[in-house]
């Protein structure tokens, strides 16, 4: 129950103990009931094994070979972990993709978290037209990434983009700039498009988390004379921590998978300035047809996601599942 104690902290000890009291003791014997439960979840586990573990295993198997389908009848050569060694030691393009992905992960997540929290606080308040505001905030998230990427392409357009027009009118620039074809600006333009698209997702998760916080805590705090800031910092924020971690974890994984936005918006360019890990992997596999090397890249990305997920769940204690049961 460490997570829950942390989460509720000093302000909510009573609630925490109440929760603890309702949780039944773990039964020592493996009952018939447990076996039956295992039988019931078996189909789901089988489905997961088929759609997640089988491709994963197969991709790992492929990553141990040198496979080039560029030429007819080229034999497969077994190279063991050679593809991974190459990736780590002799692949500047991978290091570049890692840097790009890392930059996006850090800045995008930070911006999305701050903005998402603001939106969530707005969406969580009762006021006239709340439904309208909620819908408006969620529109970007409901758009297909390819569509929104196309839209941003037009917004950032070098000759007729509205972004250029706005900056001109504000006097920030004195000539139209090709924002998504610049070695300096492109990645930030792309992060802007990503934040616009996914902040609603973070806001949605945070709103859901906020609605689980009992209203009487705020009432009690108000009676005790706590300011709005105190209420946010001592009640909302700590009780929301599990939700925040889940939201950040999901977004982090999304960034590792980010393919559609750079694919459509920038094509990874200029040069390789916005080539993410997934885009690089995709290209090695589908346009270079190096299935072995590409699978090794996918495997490497998988390891990075695994470590990230582990840190979030194990070290920071994000309740991906399980804890919800206790609510």
């Amino acid at each position, binding site marked *: 129950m460490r997570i829950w104690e942390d989460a509720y902290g000093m302000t909510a000890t009573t609630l925490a103990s109440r929760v603890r009291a309702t949780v*039944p003791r773990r039964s020592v014997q493996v009952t018939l009931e447990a076996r039956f439960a295992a039988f019931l979840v078996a189909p789901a586990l089988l489905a997961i094994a088929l759609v*997640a573990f089988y*491709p994963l295993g197969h991709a790992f198997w492929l990553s141990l070979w040198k496979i080039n389908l*560029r030429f007819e009848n080229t034999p497969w050569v077994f190279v063991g972990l050679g593809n991974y060694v190459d990736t780590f030691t002799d692949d500047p393009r991978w290091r570049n993709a890692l840097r790009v992905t890392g930059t996006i992960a850090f800045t995008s997540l930070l911006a999305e978290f701050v903005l998402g929290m603001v939106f969530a606080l707005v969406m969580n308040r009762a006021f006239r037209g709340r439904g309208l505001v909620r819908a408006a905030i969620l529109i970007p998230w409901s758009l297909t990434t390819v569509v929104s990427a196309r839209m941003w392409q037009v917004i950032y357009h070098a000759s007729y983009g509205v972004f250029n027009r706005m900056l001109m009118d504000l006097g920030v620039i004195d000539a139209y700039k090709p924002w998504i*074809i610049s070695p300096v600006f492109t990645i930030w333009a792309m992060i802007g498009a990503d934040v616009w698209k996914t902040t609603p997702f973070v806001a949605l998760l945070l709103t859901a988390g906020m609605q689980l916080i009992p209203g009487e805590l705020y009432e009690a705090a108000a009676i005790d004379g706590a300011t709005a800031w105190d209420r946010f910092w001592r009640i909302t924020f700590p009780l929301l921590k599990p939700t925040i971690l889940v939201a950040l974890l999901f977004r982090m994984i999304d960034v590792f998978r980010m393919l559609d936005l750079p694919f459509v918006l920038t094509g*990874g360019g200029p040069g390789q300035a916005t080539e993410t890990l997934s885009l690089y992997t995709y290209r090695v596999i589908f346009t270079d047809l190096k299935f072995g090397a590409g699978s090794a890249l*996918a495997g490497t990305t*998988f390891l990075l996601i695994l470590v990230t997920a*582990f840190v979030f769940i*194990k070290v920071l204690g994000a309740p991906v599942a399980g804890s919800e049961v206790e609510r």
Partner: protein
Amino acid sequence: MERTISGMTRRRQVAWLASITAGLAGAACGGDAAPAAAPPKAEPTKAPVAPAPTMAAAAPAATTAPAVAAQPVKVTWFAGRDTTGFTPKQVEEFNKSTGGKITIDFQEQGQQTSDLRDKFILVANAKDPSADMISMDVPFIPEFAAAGWTIDAERLMTGDEKSKFFRGTLDGATYAGKLFAVPWYNNGPGLYYRKDLLEQGGFKAPPKTYDELLLQAKKLQTSDIVGLSAQMSQTEGGIITWFEYLWGHGGDLMDEKLEVSVDKGTAGVESFKRLLTFMYTEKILPEGSLGYKTGADAQNPFIEGKAVFLRQWTSGLTQNDRDDSKIKGKWDVVPLPSLKGDKAGAGCLGTWNLGTSKFSRNPDATGEAIKWFTSQAQQKARYLAMGVPPCRPAVFDDADVKAKYSFAEKLKGTFETLKPRPVTPYYGQLSANVIQPVFGKVSTRAITPEEGIKEMADGMRKIMKG
């Protein structure tokens, strides 16, 4: 240790969930490549024209279609984008002409050449029969032939048929001594210019050298009209713009032995520097051209009357006179300028060809369609309707063509001198992984031309090693 799933400890449960979360994400980002990678390691080569037994069984009407003709044979055509809408009309006409025996399903595969290439590679890798006929850019020929994805087109060129095509177009469709596709329409660049503006500026002749181009463009451009428009994006079209300057400075990507030679001499650096000068120092080439992904993007400002000069494929000429054009009768076209002006600048061979997928179930019907589309009558129809130049010299001598296009005679000569991109199966990879990104970096000044040429040469050599 409170609630658990199926008796798992919380510790195990957490680790388990972590691995599923990551597993799903990993599968989504790279793992789904796996099923496509399933083809057996060394499949014996099959005779190209005869489909595998299972395939024949699945499509009984396949090769004997004309005789049986109970069901129309469907030929799926993987093509690039046709903005004029003429090809679909031609397809209809073809479908009628066969009396319902063969019908073509015309499928555009995206706006850029690379979209079509990526899509066909995907299909061919899965040995999928969903593509029969493929529109092929010159570099596709060696790439697809070496991978064993297309069948040779010698069968379609009987008698003296070959002598009726431009030599260069056939060379571009040949790999390892065999013709792999039939030249369908021709393309090469020209320097479009505004007659009226040059006259007003007192220039008697369009530029023959790069320096003259710069001089005239700079003199004639205004705050509203750019000096020069050209496709400069990080695409195949963009790097071709640069190739022509590279060739113009006496350099090349590879020598005759297909060894990387882009870093030999100074042509590489000088050609980059010239483009950078045009763009950033003299500002005749707008920075916005870095975003022109298609030839049409580069041509639009010209048609709107907002460019003095334009480097564009001659297939675009008729667009200058389209209904909404602001420059009707005010333009002309000449061969590209060169360094010294003693001869026309080297232009890139941009023929498009029609080939047959090896995994097609209907190679014979596809062959019929290819013959029809590349026939003299259809190349002429296409030229008259779309302004897309033919691969058969005889079309230029046709009376209808001469009557419609005053420049046809002049163009005919330029097709004899076009230069192909390196004819190697590696070209697609070289272009996508090295040349395009380096071009993107140099043209946006992320790196210097010297650094660019070195990076390009190193990268190309690495890929050529395999």
